[in-house]
């Protein structure tokens, strides 16, 4: 969620609220799917909440995040959990992994709530890069928002998602307020609200739920298992890279 990214302290709480607590379970499921003693790349590590779980499974983790504040928070967490020797955290966007990592470098790549923030073209590029840096039979874990199956679920999902996103959007707009004067703050919110609402409807969405996996996955990948959270709106896909040598 872009809405909470600039405020690391509130990120975990915000994500827990938005997913009704299921993010905690999601994280432990991701860690459970990673092979033992693996080389893992965590793209978009956020506050690094997945890192201790991965390190406990003996993984050597490279974590990247585009926000410097998030990288600092993740490093602090890694230091507090005393896992710094098995974890390295870098500041980088997902779109720069082609220059950072070489072919067949990782046993597992984690994309946790990253794909839905990218454009379609960026998703395609990123998945192809993941196919490049993964070893044969390597695992790609995609945990993200998906458009639920079935008409009624989709309607219910949109009805829940819309107010959450509106609140998240207004929150990002208002959090920029630095004026200490409460009168100015009130004035600003009242005066800017019409423009904020217009921007929300016209502007780019914060995130876009993903379509069915076969519509965006490259041929080299095969979906192994799907776990549903939040009644199908959040899914964890375990995807395996085909071993082309066979």
């Amino acid at each position, binding site marked *: 969620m872009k809405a909470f990214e600039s405020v690391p302290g509130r990120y975990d709480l915000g994500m827990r609220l938005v997913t009704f607590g299921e993010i905690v379970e999601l994280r432990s499921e991701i860690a459970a799917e990673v092979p033992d003693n693996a080389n893992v790349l965590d793209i978009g590590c956020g506050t690094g909440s997945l890192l201790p779980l991965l390190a406990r499974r003996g993984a050597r983790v490279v974590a990247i995040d585009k926000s410097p504040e998030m990288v600092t928070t993740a490093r602090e967490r890694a230091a507090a959990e005393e896992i710094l020797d098995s974890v390295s955290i870098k500041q980088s*966007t997902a779109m*720069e992994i082609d220059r950072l990592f070489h072919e067949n470098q990782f046993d597992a790549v984690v994309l946790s709530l990253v794909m839905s923030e990218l*454009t379609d073209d*960026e998703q395609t*590029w990123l998945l192809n890069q993941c196919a490049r840096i993964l070893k044969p039979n390597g695992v790609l874990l995609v945990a993200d928002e998906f458009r639920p199956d079935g008409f009624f679920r989709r309607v219910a999902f949109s009805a829940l998602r819309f107010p959450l996103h509106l609140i998240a959007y207004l929150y990002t707009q208002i959090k920029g307020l*630095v004026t200490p004067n409460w009168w100015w703050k009130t004035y600003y919110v009242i005066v800017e609200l*019409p*423009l904020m609402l*217009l921007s929300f409807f016209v*502007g780019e969405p914060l995130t876009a739920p993903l379509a069915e996996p076969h519509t965006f996955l490259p041929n080299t990948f095969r979906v192994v298992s799907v776990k549903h959270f939040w009644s199908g709106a959040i899914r964890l896909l375990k995807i395996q890279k085909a071993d082309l040598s066979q």
Partner: protein
Amino acid sequence: MKDFLLDVLQLFFRMIPHPTKPRLITFGKPTRQSPVLVTVNSSLTVRRLSKVLKDEDCYLLVAPAGGINVWCGSVGGHFSIESIISIIKTSGIESLVNHRRLILPQLCAPAINSKELNARAGWSGQFGPIRAEDIPEYLRNGKRVTTAMTEISYAPKDRLEMAVAMSGSIIVRFSLLPLIILGWWGMTRFAASVLCSAVVLHLLNERLPGSTDTRKALLVSPLAISLLILISWSEYGVSIWSLVFVAALTMISTVLVGNAHSGYTPFKQCSYSRQFYGYPPLKIDIVTEACTGCTLCDWVCPVDCFAPIQQDNNRTTFIMANPVNCVECGACLVQCPTTAVVNLYETPGHSPELSCA
């Protein structure tokens, strides 16, 4: 027809983003040596560029920047090196051309440092002209900018455009109150007086007497009042109450227009950015000892702040010659290859060796 409708809508609702899909656009029949231009994914910007580039042979990369224009996007952090990296990777431009040179809009200088772009993406960047209309001439001249291309201009056409854009944003923000108190009648009168005073103030700003924009705007209000009375009179005849309401609405709208005016011109930063978004104030100066005379600050400055001076030891350095012109965009701070350009507000104790001309 669709373009015309979009033009009108995006003129009036200029203050909200107009995103379009980030993509690669091909003009004419480009070769492997053809220039590659970069812009933002604002629908208005892309349409205007498409109009001027239609006879050229080149590539245009539309980078994801939230649908915001180049200058605002760069200063506000929406258009950044990450946007350019994303579009380079997703467009596949690397397989279409042999060179690795981008032509960047000059007004993205507050966000995009060519050295960093080169290190992170492997492409070098060169600043092109500010205005889209100058691009064909720039490409014909062997990609050299003239001084006129690097300075902001504010022609009557631009003034009219910004006046309508500003009226749109004021009307959207404030017309709820007249609508509630005076109904449709009040709202239309309010909108008309905002539009009228904004157009007059933008077109005649330098010629009107008065020390502040608000005072200048108040000078315009009699004109707006008489216009509104004329409209009301032709519809219903004039009553003393309609006169009072019209006068009050006009006063309020002219004060709003006057307060907002300078932030909608290219010569002053929007006051909101500092008051509400915490943009740091800049007071730019150049440390003569550190200046190598590379001319980059002079080049990227859109308002002609800097001037070269000849030093004793046959060395040319630059000084802050016109600090009143500064719009605090921060382009020079980002671009300076040494640390010669400084923000005096961040320099402890305004060190005495700094020479402010």
